[in-house]
């Protein structure tokens, strides 16, 4: 059974669906990345998962059961925006967390804060954005929680501390715990996440194992000797999900069967047929904005 199940979640604001029939499952012992443009509905999803917002319909299950008060001990949450009390010191936040959660390990929180370079005596209002993130991350990872919901857990952090947060996430997965995190830094998701979901306008537009998405999704490119060419129906192959045609160059986004489609393109008379790999950023852009994606892939290929 999956540690986290989101089932047909919908959150309406008046006539507008912030989250629209969204489902995903996070297995135990895994880091799961949630990607999406600004306003896609990621933060609303996190809030519905925690009962901070009431879903219009659908449900969220932890180990198959709906959220009950006792579940909160098992879930640690890092919100996108600081929820620290401005007038309180970091040490006071540790004390407050200790009183609220019986499994919280204050010594571990202090150890993490030292690693992040945040002084306990500082008041929250004196902390930079990155330091606030570090405090919330340290409090969350010292909770001994089995489920970590992290909404932009590296916001404002420098590259060294960003990597440190990723290592903490990997450690949790290695212990059998489950991490769901969102980030605009696709490179981080690409490194640490086993699976990803891409949200756009509240809907799930892409889901899968990062490694499988990369193995299946390729660009097949071919150059025709003159402008009078036909694709012999190749573009209608169900595995071709997007086609860009300039005067003589054809670029096909395929989902599986890249080598076969490359051979067909060559038989149709194309020369210089090649199969281009896509990284997660390319795959993400194709899912939410195909036009931007093609420009991006082409620019990258031309410069390399």
């Amino acid at each position, binding site marked *: 059974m999956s540690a986290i199940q989101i089932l047909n979640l919908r959150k309406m604001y008046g006539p507008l669906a912030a989250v629209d029939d969204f489902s995903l499952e996070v297995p135990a*012992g895994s880091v799961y990345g949630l990607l999406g443009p600004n306003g896609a509905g990621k933060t609303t999803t996190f809030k519905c998962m925690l009962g901070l917002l009431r879903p219009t319909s659908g449900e969220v299950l932890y180990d198959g059961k709906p959220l009950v008060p006792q579940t909160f001990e098992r879930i640690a949450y890092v919100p996108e925006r600081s929820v620290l009390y401005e007038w309180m010191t970091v040490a006071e936040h540790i004390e407050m967390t200790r009183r609220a959660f019986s499994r919280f390990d204050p010594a571990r929180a202090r150890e993490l804060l030292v690693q992040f370079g945040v002084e306990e005596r500082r008041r929250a209002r004196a902390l930079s954005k990155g330091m606030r993130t570090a405090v919330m991350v340290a409090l969350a990872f010292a909770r001994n929680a089995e489920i970590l919901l992290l909404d932009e857990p590296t916001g404002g952090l420098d590259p060294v501390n960003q990597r440190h947060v990723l*290592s903490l996430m990997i450690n949790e*997965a290695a212990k059998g715990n489950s991490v769901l995190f969102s980030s605009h830094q696709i*490179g981080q998701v690409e490194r640490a996440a*086993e699976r990803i979901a891409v949200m756009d306008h509240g809907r799930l537009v892409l889901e899968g194992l990062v490694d*499988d998405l990369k193995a299946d999704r390729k660009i097949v490119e071919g150059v025709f000797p003159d402008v009078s060419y036909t694709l012999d129906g190749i573009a209608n192959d169900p595995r071709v999900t997007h086609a860009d045609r300039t005067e003589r160059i054809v670029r096909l986004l395929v989902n599986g069967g890249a080598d076969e489609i490359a051979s067909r393109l060559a038989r149709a008379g194309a*020369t*210089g047929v090649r199969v281009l790999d896509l990284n*997660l950023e390319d795959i993400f852009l194709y899912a939410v904005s195909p036009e931007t994606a093609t420009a991006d892939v082409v620019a990258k290929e031309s410069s390399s």
Partner: protein
Amino acid sequence: MAAVLTVDPRSGVPIYLQIIEQIKRSVALGVLQVGEQLPTVKQLAIDLTVNPNTVARAYRELERDAVIETAPGRGSFVRGDGMAQSPRAAAADIARTAFDAALREAKSVGLTRDEAQELIEAALDRWFQE
């Protein structure tokens, strides 16, 4: 061991395939010796900052390819029995992949078999001169 492995998560090549290729290469080059112990899945995941399930997938495929074997409770080791791929066979595998890619490119830009052969002969003279 961990020091010889790196992954490039930004590459379009799946991470588990990168791990498989590098371990095969290390065996071919003798950097990893027969019988040598590999890091645990958990340790390698932490060292590379990648998901443990991704490393586990690479190890499973390496077991299937008879490159490594896993003894429950003891860890994973480079295989030394008759089933294991010899370092020379592993080296040939690496070269074959490179030749395939190069010849595929040559064909796709319109070279004939004879022209490709000429290039290969010239390359052989350059790299294998006595």
